[in-house]
């Protein structure tokens, strides 16, 4: 059933990598675009299909769980088909292989471009240009193409040669300096990749807007999304406080820039269990005090207003932490919510996987086993459409899984030509053995 898909009939020629680019095209694939990932078996694109094309169980176990947690702790011979970090951004997509650096491979890519509506990339600047696939060449092949470029720091200006992953983009976008422990220097800040999530969403949004314009006018266009400029807008309050009031913002830990007091993450009974609590209003504070049984430390009328609580924020946090530390996380969560206080458990990845609300609301879909992973529950897209079939329609694309479809059905190659390209190494379901050995 592909009914009423918002982007039915739209095809994406997808050169995107890592998370920002690959998630942008995933959101478009979720909406029904046919997203065809162009994969080169002779090039290992870092952080795009796995940490490495050659991973043993011991190495995988050294890598943080989100990237190293392959099935059963054993990546197997094709880690690019079972990396928890990367295969989820390949849902609803198709994958085909081609060495675009060779003339016959480039011809295949060009043939795909001619029948595509969107071309997406976030490769190092100049990568496509080296193949002769600059914007002018793409538009010559497909005048109404929507081209999405997602450079880290822009395609013009002094920062064009900057290189970076999400953590470096987060740094320049002002994200990194705003998070961390208030009593520690930023040197202790651990990496996160908020910018990948953000830029991916905006890349998809911009393409959706451009496709609407194209549907109405027939006109394509080029989109440049400099990830750093986009991500800076995830922190408008800090930037505007600097721009308007000359005030520099640093980390406030887990406190609230919305003025909620208390607002923080407090320990619960057990090992490494935590609950987040926000009193979003004086009414929620009164509910909390009642729930606590009106202890002496909370009884002062001064604390009834947020300005009063601001004078005693450390004390409130300390007393609250002492109290929560003896309570069981899940009980406390439900009891506080029932009492009218905003609270939520800090769910680790296991808690989230087993969360009863997510299970009850259809957050997961069980996908059948492949040669590279067992039957597994995968997340479905966050947006639920009552009529359009937006959802997890097809499993993450295995490397080269759709070679037959792309070469034969889409591009109409005959058996001879198919076999010739296969013999030349273009058509395959594995990376080149040399590349695996040396990566």
């Amino acid at each position, binding site marked *: 059933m592909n009914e009423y898909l*918002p982007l039915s*009939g739209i095809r994406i020629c997808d050169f995107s990598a890592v998370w920002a680019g690959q*998630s942008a095209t995933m959101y478009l694939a979720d909406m029904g675009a046919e997203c065809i990932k162009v994969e080169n078996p002779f090039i290992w694109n870092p952080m795009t299909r796995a940490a490495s094309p050659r991973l043993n169980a011991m190495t995988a176990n050294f890598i943080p*769980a989100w*990237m*190293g947690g392959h099935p059963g702790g054993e990546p197997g011979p094709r880690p690019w088909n079972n990396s928890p970090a990367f*295969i989820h951004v390949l849902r609803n997509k198709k994958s085909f292989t081609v060495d675009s650096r060779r003339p016959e491979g480039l011809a295949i890519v060009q043939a795909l471009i001619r029948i595509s509506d969107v071309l997406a990339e976030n490769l190092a600047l100049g990568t496509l240009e080296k193949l002769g696939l600059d914007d002018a060449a793409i538009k010559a092949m497909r005048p109404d193409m929507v081209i999405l470029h997602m450079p880290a720091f822009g395609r013009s200006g002094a920062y064009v040669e*900057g290189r*970076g992953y999400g953590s*470096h983009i987060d740094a320049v976008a002002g994200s990194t*300096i705003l*998070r961390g422990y208030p009593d520690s220097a930023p*040197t202790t800040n651990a*990496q996160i990749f*908020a910018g990948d999530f*953000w830029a991916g*969403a905006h*890349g998809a*949004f*911009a393409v959706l807007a451009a496709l*609407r*314009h194209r*549907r109405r006018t027939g006109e394509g266009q*080029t*989109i*440049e*999304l400099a990830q750093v400029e986009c991500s800076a807008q995830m*922190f*408008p*309050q*800090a930037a505007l406080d600097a721009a*308007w009031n*000359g005030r520099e*913002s640093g980390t406030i*830990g887990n406190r609230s*820039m*919305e003025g909620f007091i208390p*607002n*923080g*993450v407090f320990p619960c009974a057990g090992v490494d269990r*935590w609950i*987040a*609590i*926000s009193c979003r209003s004086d009414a929620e504070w009164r509910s909390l005090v009642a729930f606590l049984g009106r202890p002496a430390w909370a009884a002062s009328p001064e604390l009834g207003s947020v300005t009063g609580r601001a004078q005693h924020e450390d004390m409130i946090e300390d007393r609250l932490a002492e109290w929560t530390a003896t309570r069981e996380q899940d009980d406390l969560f439900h009891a506080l*919510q029932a009492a009218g206080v905003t609270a*939520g458990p800090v769910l680790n990845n296991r*808690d*989230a996987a087993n969360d009863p*609300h*997510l299970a009850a*609301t259809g957050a997961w879909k069980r996908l059948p086993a492949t040669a590279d*992973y067992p039957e*597994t529950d995968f997340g479905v897209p*966050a*947006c*639920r*459409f*009552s009529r*359009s079939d*937006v959802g997890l329609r097809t499993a993450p694309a295995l490397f080269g899984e759709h070679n037959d479809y792309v070469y034969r059905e889409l591009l109409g190659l005959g058996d001879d030509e198919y076999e010739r390209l296969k013999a030349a190494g273009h058509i395959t379901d594995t990376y080149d053995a040399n590349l695996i050995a040396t990566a």
Partner: protein
Amino acid sequence: MLDLTSHIAGPYATKLLADLGARVIKLERPGGDRSRGLGPFLGDQPGVERSGTYQFLNTNKESVVADLKRPAARTVIERLVAKADLVVTSFAPATEERLGVDYNALRDIADVPVLSITNFGHGGPYRDYRLSETTLFAMGGEMFGHGLIGHEPLKLGGTAALLQSGAMAGIAAMGAIHAREAHGIGQHVEISLFDTQINSTDRRTASILAYRFSGRIQERAAGAGGGIAGGIYPVADGYVEVTASFGNYWQRFVEMVDDDALRDPKWLLPQTAMDPAAKEEADAIIYPWMLTHTRQEVWAEARRAHAMVAPLFTGTDIFEDRVFRERGLWVEVHHQLLGSFPMFGRPYVLEATPWRLRQPAPMLGEHTGAVLSELGFSSSDVATLRSEGAVA
């Protein structure tokens, strides 16, 4: 489109649409969207028109004040819905029903796409639960894995999680518009903030899948960085983020620091990366180099060598940065009450249909009269509605 959202996530979704040209009519409750009370304030003076959060989130929108609790406001809603291509709401499920703006009630007015943004969706055990920026990231996002082991898990800066969820809602809104224009259908599109974070590509989707695959828990790190060089380093005037732990990245990093002692092949041996003594030896070279360079000097050398190194910018840096200025990250807003002030401009450059600031965020109820008149209410109708407190 009719925008019934408030606070942060919903208004960000409709801002994305408004900034690319959609006509967004924002319905505000009497007294206004509560984001009008969020800082920073222009000149540090609080005021209903002076909120930076509101000014950022509501560019290019029109403001109509109506009190949905008053029956007289119903005709206003009905006429707005009948003319809309999309309705976006962000009420709690119980509130939606009480105010008569749940999907079924809106569907009775017109078969228009409705995007409803809720904390936890319209079903399930947490349906009516409260949520904040912090609890959203705690439950949905990868807070548990962010920070250092032995310390409490950490949130993101500002209101990042709510804004991220708003961006996801923007995609859902565009999907609903495409489905309507391509297939002629209205429908109910739901986004739960919790789900958007559970689906975050900032490791959460990955860590959940990793648990299902391997049973491994994503713990917080023991310290920043890894390998011989990596993590955040102090420099002369701040900090830089460094990735140099392996192969090619290490070589580019060495090219940046340009010290022959680091060119010894021993640094490339796999066992070196795990050796604390080797790290100490490398740090003895790296730290002095870092501390004698400014962030911009380090970044210039990094760009020359294509090293994975970048400075930690602050809000001031982002505002003052010459390259961002030249490229057009900032625009100047001309506000009839507040005068001129800077604002973030385009998050992306669309060649044919550019991001454009057509008008600043609206003053409270600025467009009530004009919109009601456009909807066919006579001036006496409007006067009556105003006197009844249905609009303002």
